């Protein structure tokens, strides 16, 4: 069964690769390839059990794809332009700005995300009747997810005050809800 799973996965990625190589890429060919790749999940979980099967399915994809990428490598030899060496000093204003963003993206966003994930996990617990362990793990998982997204969002935004204002409002209302 493991061999069947691996072969199905190889076929799926090869189909995707063949479709990718064509000049006029067809969405239907891609869809079939992805279906075969997804279908390989079934023999994986049959052979290894659900938990191992899913992890093996994910781990099987990159090595197969990388082999195809290596086989498809192109050589574009060109002379690299000579590089000048110069002293680059960090901009003080830029550093202050970065430090400020780090403070907002770090502890401040963490607190906001904790309040947000607590609110959602408690709401889910009440509506679905979860036990404490489920609620707490959901809380932690959402916290990690929200925090990583918030850091990205906050740093990507060129105007900090909008995101800061949004987070501040959320923190205050969350604190009121939790402790008020």
């Amino acid at each position, binding site marked *: 069964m493991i061999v069947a799973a691996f072969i199905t996965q190889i076929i799926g990625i090869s189909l995707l690769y063949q479709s990718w190589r064509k000049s006029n890429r067809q*969405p239907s060919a891609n869809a079939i390839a992805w279906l075969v790749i997804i279908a390989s999940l079934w023999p994986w979980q049959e052979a290894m059990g659900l938990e191992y099967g899913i992890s093996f399915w994910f781990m099987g994809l*990159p090595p197969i794809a990388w082999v195809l*990428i290596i086989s498809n490598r192109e050589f574009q030899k060109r002379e690299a332009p000579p590089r000048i*060496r110069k*002293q680059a000093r960090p901009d003080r204003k830029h550093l202050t700005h*970065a430090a400020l963003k780090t403070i907002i993206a770090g502890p401040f966003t963490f607190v906001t995300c904790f309040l947000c994930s607590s609110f959602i996990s408690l709401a889910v617990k009440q509506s679905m009747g979860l036990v404490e362990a489920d609620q707490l793990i959901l809380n*932690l998982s959402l*916290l990690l997810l929200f925090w*990583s997204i918030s850091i990205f969002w906050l740093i990507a935004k060129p105007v900090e005050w909008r995101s800061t204002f949004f987070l501040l409002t959320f923190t205050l209302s969350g604190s009121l809800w939790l402790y008020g």
Partner: protein
Amino acid sequence: MAYLKLSANTVKKSVSAHKSIALAIAALLYLICLTGTLSVFFEEFERWEQPSIEEYTDYTPAQIHTAIQNFQQRVNHTPKTLWVVLPTEAVPRMHISGDDQEWFINRDGHLSAAPLEAWTTMLTKLHMQLHLPQNIGLILVGILGVLLCSLIFSGLLSHPNLFKDAFRWRRGRQALTQVDLHNRLSIWALPFYFMISFTGAFIGLMGLFSVIAGAAFYNNNNEALLDDIYGSDPEVLKVSVNLNINTALQTLKSIAPEARPIYLAIQNMGTDDQYFEIAATLPKRLIYSEIYRFHADGSLINHQQFSDGAVGRQIAYSVYRLHFGHYAGQWVKVIYGLLGLALSVICASGVNIWLAKRKYESTLNDLWVAVVWGLPLALALAALFSFYNWAPLWVFLSTELLAVVFALLMKQPLNTRWILMACLTATLAIIVFTREILSFNETVTPTFHQVNLSILMVSLVLGMMLFQQRYQC
């Protein structure tokens, strides 16, 4: 192939955020990825460091009893908890520990050498807590896990052609090679990297979360929170002075025939509340173990419900094996090693892209070479000198410092890289020969030679890369 259609503004902002986060944590993230990759094989490295410890996979209750008696004779007092780590296929060695004292157990139950706290310990501590005080280190590494998740999200949104170029690798031009290498390695193993960063953040920040959630929901009672997640201690109803491990093992065999015991913990040893736990792995499950609790007389109390309790509890106890790659045998470790190495290359190539796009060279180019090639060299030299009882952490730190100074003095990143790579290649080869010579008269396990062979192969690959680079120059 379908690809994400993102506005130019979103892509621009995402690239900016991806760059800012990556540059801020590049060196630390690279260190964590590199040490994490090596830490996947920490069991093999531990066996390699002490190759003459007796190895076996079978054990008897009598052997365990003898070991416990010998342990009690050696230490001055009875520890609150005594651990007997049982031999498994992955680590066919048995050891006993309590109150920071630990010895290996021979086949006859007598105690042999104490486990070394040498290079492998330094490596795993570096990965888990950066050798900082435990709580601070764990939290910092956990935060790095969160930031890696951020990099994954921003990376996805930064590259609108990520799927369109899914199989493309343009080699030759330095910057383009790095860009394609970075993107191709990233996209295909993205779920794996997300899983690694998420589970890493989960492990690292669980302590901080328990403090904050404990304050918010449990009146500062962290223990109650952790009991809700992982289960609480059992109620001991039967008092017995003598431990009946044999009955417990028989009971375990009858209630869970597929369970493979991995360790035994005697709790509240020598008191009326004495009981013991047998942790056992279950086939096809990612949970670290199920824990079966027994009265001292060997009768079953209960199991901790890691395998069949609340989903949250099962998830909380599954993150460890999922993060370490310690499940389903040796091949998983090899794949984790390869994917971990790919993640380290992604870190290095990401900064290389940024440096290449600057169109000029500065001190940062030198420093980055010292980080990328200095860190593996520092780890290798720490391993080499640990055979002569030098403190591996100090060797590691001194070497890295020397690599930085050397790179700054050279001011030629390409040459510095070549020299550091050459030093690394030579050090790895010397490690193998030194190990083989030092253990020439000892009876060693096959794993010892396998690890040496793997190191030699890495050294040969690096040697080939060196030759190729010099030839191209």
